[in-house]
């Protein structure tokens, strides 16, 4: 029984192994598209080392929400950088490049989202690393890939340009209106996710053959993959698909409607039993037998769907959202109000599933954040710690992986190959940090209280 499989899942998470434990990931990543992927691998137990150029590091540390920061940190950076070790390494310097190569020799996966040619300039491109470590899985992510006209023009790209370029924004709007941008960085996040499917497939290939490989991905091309029917539709009809607002033109009925209480509700009832349930709930069971609506393919047609959606809109408009949600449960169709952040945060179901998990972090304290959204019964992914300042784990990484002596460390800091954070929000530790706790190797041993994280 599913119940037996998942009993006490959340409580026992920490006592089980992680699926990617033993794998090492090196990232040279910035702003959403870059760091999200390694974060997912780290949530599944990989040891992710985030290489940043000191003292400013990843530019995502700069991004606030209209000026709001969480204990000085960018909420975005906090979300996209989980369970990582932070190495401040200057790849402009030959000594920094040499350290990177030494780490790459002991790594399984390397990820970056710099422009084409930059890693070559740093002398850490795929050809050089593959000579040291032929099993390496080396991923590069950017706007236009590594070859083709746009890549060669060195066009800059970002999530907004990608939403515009791909046709996604044009499609995700109401007819005749200027397109709106998705509130989330959809192309970046989805592109980062799709890239990990490639990385983990490459890992399976390596598990079988020992061979590594090179992978490139563009976030615009990736978001195009999600636009399923659009492309064959265009190829067959030679017509642009019309923007349809909230209506799902492949499922009928499926749309978002205004309720009597001012909120909005999304509803779907396509399968025969669901549609019959909806008609019953509306008090018009005969609609389910109406020849315009009885069969799904007929109902979807442009001459029928708007009529049906009009009937539903009128019905919903006289009722509060809660009533529609209750009727959906009772009659077996799908409906939910369009939830805002406060309603999402009050959702007890996702909390108890451990998806909206409570992070208990030595630096950023307690706050709720998304767990990796695949629950794995034998090897649960888990958020264990939050973001850290630039170069925060230098000593730990250098000592543990390369056994660098204190004298060598000092020299590396001296020439600037290694470095730590700038004294700026998002780069430095939060203001209430005690200057000691959570450092792995170089805690102040003279103060046992400090070593225990007490002030």
């Amino acid at each position, binding site marked *: 029984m599913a119940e037996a499989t998942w009993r006490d899942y959340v409580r026992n998470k920490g006592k089980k192994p992680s699926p990617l434990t033993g794998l090492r990931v090196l990232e040279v990543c910035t702003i959403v598209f870059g760091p999200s992927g390694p974060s997912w691998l780290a949530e599944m137990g990989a040891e992710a080392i985030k290489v940043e150029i000191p003292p400013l590091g990843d530019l995502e540390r700069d991004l606030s929400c209209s000026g709001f920061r*969480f204990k000085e940190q960018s909420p*975005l950076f906090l979300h996209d950088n989980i369970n990582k070790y932070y190495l401040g390494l200057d790849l402009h310097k030959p000594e920094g490049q040499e350290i990177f190569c030494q780490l790459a020799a002991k790594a399984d996966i390397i990820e970056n989202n710099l422009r084409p040619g930059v890693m070559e300039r740093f002398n850490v491109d795929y050809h050089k690393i593959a000579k040291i470590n032929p099993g390496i899985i080396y991923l590069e992510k950017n706007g236009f890939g590594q070859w083709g006209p746009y890549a060669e023009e060195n066009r800059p790209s970002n999530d907004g340009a990608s939403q515009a370029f791909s046709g996604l924004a044009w499609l995700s709007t109401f007819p005749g209106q200027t397109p709106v941008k998705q509130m989330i960085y959809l192309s970046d996040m989805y592109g980062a996710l799709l890239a990990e499917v490639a990385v983990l497939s490459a890992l399976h290939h390596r598990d079988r053959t020992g061979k590594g490989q090179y992978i490139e991905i563009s976030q615009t091309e990736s978001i195009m993959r999600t636009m399923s029917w659009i492309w064959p539709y265009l190829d067959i009809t030679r017509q642009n*698909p019309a923007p349809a607002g909230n209506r799902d033109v492949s499922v009928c009925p499926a749309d978002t409607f*205004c309720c009597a209480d001012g909120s909005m509700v999304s509803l779907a009832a396509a399968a025969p039993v669901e549609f019959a349930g909806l008609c019953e709930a509306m008090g018009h069971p005969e609609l389910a037998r109406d020849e315009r609506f009885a069969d799904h393919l007929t109902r979807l047609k442009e001459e029928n769907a708007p009529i049906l959606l009009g009937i539903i809109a009128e019905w919903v408009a006289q009722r509060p959202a809660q009533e529609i949600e209750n009727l959906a449960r009772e009659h077996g169709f799908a409906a939910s109000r369009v*939830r805002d952040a406060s309603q999402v945060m009050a959702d007890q179901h996702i909390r*108890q599933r451990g998806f909206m998990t409570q992070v208990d972090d030595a630096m950023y304290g307690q706050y709720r954040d998304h767990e990796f959204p695949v629950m794995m019964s034998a090897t649960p992914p888990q958020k264990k710690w939050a973001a850290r300042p630039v170069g925060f784990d230098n000593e730990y990484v250098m000592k543990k992986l390369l056994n660098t002596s204190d004298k060598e460390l000092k020299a590396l800091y001296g020439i600037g190959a290694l470095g730590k954070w700038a004294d700026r929000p998002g780069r430095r530790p939060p203001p209430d940090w005690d200057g000691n706790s959570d450092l792995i190797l170089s805690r102040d041993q003279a103060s046992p209280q400090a070593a225990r994280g007490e002030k």
Partner: protein
Amino acid sequence: MSAKRPKWAEWADWVRENDDPRMAGPKPEALDDLVVLDLSSQSYAGAYCSSMLAEFGAEVIRVEPPQGDFLRTCTPYGLLHQGEGLNYLTEGRNKYHVTLDLNLEEGRDILRGLAAQADVLLETFPLGTMDTWGLGYEELKKTNPGLIFASITAHGQFGPEANDPMPDYDNVAQAKSGIQYATGAMLPPEEDVATCPWAVSTKAGPWIAWCSAGTFMATGILAALHWRCRTGQGQALDVATTEAYMRLDNYTHIWFQGGGHVTERVGGLDNALWLYCFAPTSDGGVFLGGLRLEMWQAFCDMMGKWDEWEVGEWDSLSPFLNQEAQLKYFPEVAKFTRQHTSEELVRMAVDYSQSGRLAPITTVIAPILSPKEAMEDTNWNERGVFAPTQDPIYGRVVAVQAQHKMTETPIRTKWVCRPVGYDNAFVYRKYLGYGPAHLSQLREQGVL
């Protein structure tokens, strides 16, 4: 290809020679040692997930009820291509299609036989369905302890609402995610929804919640396979569609906790960045982007506001990173962009990079393209994004595949779809040794 090639042209050529998707044919396939049973029902998330694996060469067996999966009827405006709905047409790629009535004990027995030989089983039935059939994870793992049993549903396999029988739909998951709420046009001052019915929370056009659930599940399956390679141990996996999509939201939950702020719609603007917005043009719209102060200054210069706003005196982007400032400046931006076509603005940014006051610094200006324009763009065609598949049954079909490009184990689309039950003879012969006589008997009994 542009005439003047970059310094790293040699690198670009090497990558292209080694990962152009059109040359994938003879290369090894990353997952061709795997057998995946895809029982997903009425779920694009499931079909999408198994497509990811099938593109890598996994032998994906789609198990459908005798009348076919309802998803085959989920097609825009009811449009069919040679009898097939357009969404399923492109999501049957590289898969084998068999029918099996799991409501019959005989059908369930056959499924047990297949599951004993599979590496992955994917299902999207309402919670409890597989258990009721005696096909739940605890049951199947007895004969196949290495099995990876993956479930995608609206609410997941456990938790207080897990037993809510609500079917899983993309648009409802988008509504629950919190993302749709905060996406959409702002209501113009002194208007209401009756006069501006488009100024409401707006979902993303594609089945993006379903795609997110399917793609996250693919990563979970692959991570579980790695674990199985090391230990031999299988496991059960659980994805709830709403949670998968919600995971792509970078900040609304943190902003709410730290600042008590509910993220509202900002239309084409952005909560975290400036200059970073969509703006209307005389013939459509453009994206304007410049994460650095100088790029915003360059745009002010293009608008002819350099002196009026004393742009040269600005020394930080911070004053513009709040909504108040954006709502003050955006109308000026839009007033300017409306006077030009998208093409004129794109050209203006390029010219500015050559001869503007701040050159080579300029603003990123990208046209908001329709899918048709995107599909005609040379760049994507050169990179093989829209390469059509010649399917033996359905003919020419443009089924866009996953867009990672790989040197050793690239993906490929060999065929796009199969009619219901098309591979019954092949699959049941290969796995269970059933010959034609046995199969026709099963067909008569309604099992297939």
